[in-house]
């Protein structure tokens, strides 16, 4: 008799707990959304953008010039709207470049900096000040805020980059046999408390993924760029290191960008 009552009580407790956790799950997503809305005001990315703007206009490098004459595809010196139409093909380099590749290209060719030195440590570590590349990229993307994404596919190399990017997105590998699509090719998936956007099959998710990076990552206290974001995805999949500015990184960014065409840039954003 005693044991029977104990089991019923245990079952009731279990059901109670299950119900409570289901309620908590729904409200956890809402609470995260509320937390994000609160964070959006006073985005520390503004501080990084301010530093990027200052660096942009400073004469630097062996040639002692500023970045103001860099051509991002809209003409020399035109930065407004440039990020929104990249990656794109550049005839002078004869390759498709994303914003960060082109930025480094200008730092090397326009300002006379050493490429190895510039690309050595592109991302800031914990507790470190933002790197120059992060600050400059933040400023660059801020100058495309509100502008519709318009990644071109008119040049054969641009189309080839998209195709390779799509191939890379669906390619399974690594010790978990993951592809990007494993997490980001299915609707309604979640990892821990994070809803996973379906950036291959769901246009609003694809839009948001491309238009809200670079972003300030509150948990890291740093602004992170799209090159960083893909590098971190590869790390999470236990893939080999995605080399900074590698052709694969540019191909993947091309794939993501074209999939987001039409959506308005809204970066730097703020994330968990």
């Amino acid at each position: 008799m005693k044991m029977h009552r104990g089991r019923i009580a245990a079952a009731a407790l279990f059901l109670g707990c299950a119900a409570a956790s289901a309620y908590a799950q729904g409200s956890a997503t809402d609470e995260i959304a509320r937390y994000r809305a609160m964070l959006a005001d006073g985005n520390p990315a503004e501080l990084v953008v301010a530093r990027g703007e200052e660096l942009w206009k400073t004469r630097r490098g062996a040639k002692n010039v500023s970045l103001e004459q860099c051509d991002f595809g809209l003409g020399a010196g035109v930065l407004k709207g440039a990020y929104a139409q990249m990656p794109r093909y550049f005839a002078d380099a004869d390759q498709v470049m994303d914003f960060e590749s082109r930025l480094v290209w200008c730092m090397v060719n326009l300002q006379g900096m050493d490429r190895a030195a510039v690309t050595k440590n592109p991302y800031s570590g914990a507790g470190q000040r933002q790197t120059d590349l992060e600050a400059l990229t933040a400023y660059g993307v801020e100058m495309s805020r509100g502008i519709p994404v318009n990644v071109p596919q008119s040049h054969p190399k641009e189309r080839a980059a998209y195709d390779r990017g799509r191939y890379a997105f669906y390619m399974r590998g690594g010790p978990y046999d993951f592809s990007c699509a494993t997490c980001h090719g299915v609707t309604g998936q979640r990892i821990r408390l994070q809803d996973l956007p379906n950036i291959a099959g769901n246009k609003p998710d694809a839009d948001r993924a491309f238009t809200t990076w670079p972003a300030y990552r509150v948990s890291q206290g740093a602004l992170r760029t799209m090159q960083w974001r893909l590098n971190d995805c590869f790390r999470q999949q236990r893939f080999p290191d995605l080399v900074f500015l590698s052709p694969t990184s540019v191909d993947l960014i091309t794939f993501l960008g074209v999939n987001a065409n039409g959506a308005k840039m809204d970066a730097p954003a703020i994330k968990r």
Partner: protein
Amino acid sequence: MPDPMRIRATEQPDGVDVRVLMSHEMETGQRRDSAGAIVPAWFIQTVVVSYAGKPVLNAEWGPAVAKNPYLQFKFKGGKKGEKISITWVDNRGETRTDEATIG
């Protein structure tokens, strides 16, 4: 010279709403680096906001305040077009002052 603050001050019906984003690492002094050594404490200790030469807010902060602090508050008696001045001093003695016009 520490990085500048971003200040937004707008006149509202119930007072001037001030929002300021300060650039500061705000190290607690309790973290360890990858070698195991303590990262020294480095945080803003005092914040003073002045309007027309008089302080409208005094704050004493400690390691509980997060990196790149965002402060929002309201004060009465401010007028559009006038300036407010914000000064912070950290535990190393570094300081930064910025001004903004109330919009």
